[in-house]
């Protein structure tokens, strides 16, 4: 049956994350908040980060979208919690390569459950769904650094 191809996309672990998302909610002590949407389809993610001394101590997300975008957000939070910003940036790069169909070798391990989204590469129309949360994370880290640099500048003044 043609639908069996969907197995490539909707693995059990992905649907588990869709139905039982990790780190869904809001943080009381967020240092960064990012809202990102996919203008072509209306999917939205609100991501909150608590970053202390360059380490992502906590992360939470809210939003709405298809199962791929929500599962990907959940998987992303699991992969990056406790990582340094530099490690997170590398994990994001690994993920973006993975869903573009690149062979990232052992770097897959850094993605934890998110490596299960490799099948998205066979569904080009869904790559944007899978990457929304990761793009939000990237923006959050950049935003955090801009804030840090800005506050450092103010301190120096």
């Amino acid at each position, binding site marked *: 049956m043609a639908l069996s191809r969907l197995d490539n996309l*909707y693995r059990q672990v992905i649907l588990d994350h869709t139905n039982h998302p990790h780190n869904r909610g809001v943080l009381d002590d967020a240092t960064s908040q990012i809202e990102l949407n996919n203008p072509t*389809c209306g999917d939205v993610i609100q991501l909150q980060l608590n970053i202390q001394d360059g380490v992502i101590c906590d992360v939470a997300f809210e939003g709405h979208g298809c199962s*791929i975008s929500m599962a990907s957000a959940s998987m992303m939070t699991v992969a990056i919690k406790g990582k340094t910003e530099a490690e997170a940036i590398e994990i994001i790069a690994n993920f973006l390569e993975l869903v573009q169909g690149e062979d990232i070798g052992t770097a897959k391990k850094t993605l934890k459950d998110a490596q299960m989204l490799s099948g998205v590469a066979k569904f080009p129309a869904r790559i944007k*769904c899978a990457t929304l949360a990761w793009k939000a994370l990237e923006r959050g880290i950049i935003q955090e650094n801009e804030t840090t640099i800005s506050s450092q500048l103010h301190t120096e003044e």
Partner: protein
Amino acid sequence: MLDATRLKQDFPILHQEVNDEPLVYLDNAASTQMPLKVMNELKHFKETDYANVHRGVHTLSERATSQYEAARDTVSRFLEAKSTKEILFTRGTTTSLNWVAQSLGDLVVEKGDKIVISYMEHHSNIIPWQQLAKRKGAELIYINLTPEGFLDMTDAKSKITDGVKIVSITHASNVLGVVNDVKTLGELAHSVGAKMVVDGAQSTPHMRVNVTKLNCDFYAFSAHKMCGPTGIGVLYGRQELLEKMEPVEYGGEMIDFVYDQTSTWAELPYKFEAGTPNITGAIGLAYAIDYLEEIGLDNIHQHEQELVEYVLPKLLAIDGFELYGPKDVNQHTGVIAFNIEGIHPHDLSTALDMQGVAIRAGHHCAQPLLRYLDVMSTARASFYFYNTKEDADCLVQSIIEAKEFFQYGFI
């Protein structure tokens, strides 16, 4: 009686497998396919007659000019306009509506005036008016919808009052599948001295349109939604108004005389067509119109009605199927927007794609409408004359199988 199976033979693209399944193309509200006849005519034009128009004094330019202007005649006759001067070639409906908002807006809208649209408009018939309202300090007012998804004509009457300068409404919704009574809205608009603009992107391909009888001031549509090429569309405008309006773009053949510090404009319709126009596009549109007229717009309309009559009850019978728009098959175009409980429309669309069925999923460039309906996105199947009852059956069956997949396959 229209023979869709035979007509489908005219479209080579429809005879292929997608994801190892026979293609069922149901995304016609976004873009329709081009018949071989139109492709061949365009190929012939490009192989034998192509040149720039209006400026050359050689044979090819004469031939190209003659066919480009003949295309304008075809559009004028197709819309039953009073004159070819009322037919402007644009890049599509979006450009057409932007031109009106800018040029008519500058002519008639002042601070404190009102512009009336509705909650079922495409972004292309919202944003140009938002921008105009901001530019002029005018107020943008939305007509509400009835619970069934029709335009609320009582609300329209209460909002189209003194101070309204422009009313701009879609002829047929790209989500709800309803056809609006733009003639009555036009009468209302004119009764308060407002101008009536009609977005015909979803109506022109599917039903006969007579702009003179509709008594609208402007009417916009795109070729790619009616078997023609992309990048070409039409703005019909009432001659008396177009004469008073300023061009939106300047340069090239739209001039009459260019002096050092000032210029004068060419006569209609050239006043608005700056630069080299989309020559092959305009000619392709005329071929597409010839093709559609050969089938007959009334036959096309009737066939789509029959398809909706056939498929809508089957869809409504699917457990968890939610329709956006009227359930009355007699008041529904071939556009069917829906959701299946528990399945995000993107997931559904991918599942259908794996079964060869091409539909649309998302907000359909109608975010205010989706907010009004309190839904983030929907799936949308849209039929055209080359779709058959077998296509409709495939849609129903593929939804049922997708439901099974998401309900029992993995969870």
